[in-house]
């Protein structure tokens, strides 16, 4: 029905405009927010409503008690980061958003592992812990608790190694990140 239009090919330039929307890598967003009731709900609600999936999320105070920092990571292969940050900016209580450059950022996560370990295996687990510069924080007859700090790659590597011993429980905080150099994050 109707008159078909004249077909022309799309220019490369046009296609690039579209391709720019998905970066294909993990992104860490560092967000400064006003320390007011409900701010975290607004951020979480926005993500849920727009169908954005948060991988990790941490919230904590900053050196200014009126301001909190939210650090969240999400997958840029799935989500248009540009659209995520623009929508976040529309929240009145959001002050500043920074999409951290991986090469210029130090990121850390804390994890606690409860691992099944008896007299026979304990030494081996502790050896792995030492290699990862972890800390034994509790030892029981049949288990051991280890604290590991590092990038999430390091924590995942540790997890893989200790899982065969019997991983009772694992808890992770999600990443926090700070930019290198003198400037503020």
């Amino acid at each position, binding site marked *: *029905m*109707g*008159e*078909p*239009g*004249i077909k*022309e090919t*799309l220019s490369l*330039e*046009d296609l690039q*405009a*579209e391709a*720019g*929307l998905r970066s294909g890598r993990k992104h860490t967003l560092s967000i400064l*927010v*006003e320390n007011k*009731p*409900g701010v975290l*709900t*607004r951020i979480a*609600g*926005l993500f849920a*409503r727009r169908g954005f999936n948060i991988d990790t999320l941490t919230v904590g105070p900053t050196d200014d008690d009126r301001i909190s920092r939210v650090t969240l990571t999400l997958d840029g292969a799935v989500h248009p980061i*540009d*659209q995520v940050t*623009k*929508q976040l*900016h*529309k*929240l*009145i*209580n*959001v*002050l500043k958003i920074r999409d951290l450059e991986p090469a210029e950022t130090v990121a850390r996560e804390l994890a606690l592992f409860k691992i099944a370990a008896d007299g026979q295996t304990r030494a081996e687990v502790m050896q792995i812990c030492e290699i990862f510069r972890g800390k034994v924080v509790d030892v029981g007859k049949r288990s051991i608790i280890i604290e590991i700090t590092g990038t999430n790659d390091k924590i995942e590597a540790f997890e893989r190694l200790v899982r065969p011993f019997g991983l009772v429980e694992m808890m992770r905080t999600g990443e926090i990140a700070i930019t290198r150099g003198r400037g503020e994050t």
Partner: protein
Amino acid sequence: MRAVDAIMECLKAEGVDVVFGYPGGANMPTYDAFYDAGIKHILVRHEAGGGHAAAGYAKATGKVAVALGTSGPGATNLVTPILDAMMDSVPVVFLTGQVRTDLLGTDGFQEADTIGITMPAVKHSVMITDPAELPRVLHEAFYIARSGRPGPVVVDIPTDLSKVDIPYEPVTDLHLPGYQPTTEGNAKQVRQAAKALAAARRPVIYAGGGVVNANASAELIELTRAGNFPITCTLMGLGAFPAPDRQWLGMLGMHGTRAANYAIDEADLIVAVGARFDDRITGKLSEFAPRAKFVHIDIDPAEISKNVPAHIPIVGDAKNILSKLVVEYRSLEPDASRLEEWWARVDHWRERFPLAYEDTTDSEIRPQFMIQALAEATENDAIVTSDVGQHQMWTAQYYDFPKPRRWINSGGLGTMGFGLPAALGAKVGCPDQQVVCVSGDGSIQMNAQEFATCADNGIDVKVFIMNNGYLGMVRQWQELFWDRRYSQVKMGGNPDFVKLAEAYGCTGLRLTDKNTLVDDMRAALATPGPVLVDVRVTAEENVYPMIAPGEAARDMVG
């Protein structure tokens, strides 16, 4: 003074002359303050009516409107108007009552988590925790509602805090570090857009409701004239460019004209102003305007490249940007003759595919004819509100709007029950204007209680019900896409609308004859006070043309 008296002072300082609301337990202190505040209060018959009336007022006047409800059900009844205002970028401040602070979180009587329930539906919201902050919060609410991309702001006020004595001082400075809307368009981007326009051979201007919100109609007209560009508007933009006009292509989108949709389909440059590439505009997104580059002008950066990637994005106020763009465009002295071929093609579409329907030979009234008759009877000079459905689309198609803020409907959310309260709000805001509401026999029953508000306050609106005995748009879709399996669309048991009007103290009329329709409508319009006109139209008529859902614009049917 009491916090509630400070609220009154703030409303006055914001220039509020009327509010729409409904009292209840939790906002009684506020209503006590209204008793001698000297601010006109329209008592609606349902909070939703109040919310939509506020939207009608704001859309007609461009001013921030105010709607009030009590806690719990009062607030939840406002949820639809709040989201409606969000979707259509309408500046409304909603003041809701809340239970006493010591009852918060205890499932107290008429307690609802208003902030939580409305969170995804607001531009911003605040629950008062410190009554001394109330004046500042209110002024910030007005500022946020009206500035940038307008929208609804909810202020939730616990009843105990509203009675506290606070030191009131007029607020002169606002502190919103996280809210700084960009209004000035980037000059370099504007120049680029001008160059693209000057080079385009098949340009189209695509204007949306943002042009109306920005009061940028004059600037839009100037640019369109300067370049002799074809122009189309979205449902929300109607009136931003005067219709009919030599350069006017008609409405764009699902029930837009073929000329507008085909022009967009074949365009090499589309300048979108205050529009958001809604699915009702684009049809199948991957096949939308495949040959075009896009200039996208919008005050909300999040709209840019949300649905369609923009080649030249310009964030800022449409009025500001368009006035600069026209200067830049003129300075390039483009060759006007480059558009001759394009206009020939556009004219060909307009001539070959005008809006048309098969008229009756007897006295039966076609719904399209009804709108044409209404346009004639009102001399295209009314503020027209509508509900949602077939009558809305036919009004958009057949009533030519010569100015902005004359067409008031629920575009984004598509809220049935919007039309009557919006009309009464528009009339309160523009008492010297003729205000009519086009509704359907389904829609009108979603907020018919507001006839009482009209009668009570002598609000002179004329409501024309396009009565086809069906939920017409759903019936049309069932006919076209669901094999005519008409499920729950026959409106059996409709009331006698004439008697309904009379019961409310309004005038009721029934019109059934095409031959006298225009004169009968004139008589209805001349009748003093609120009037309901039950117009009986063809039962099974479809809105055409149509882009079927998920299809491309070039495959329009009907």
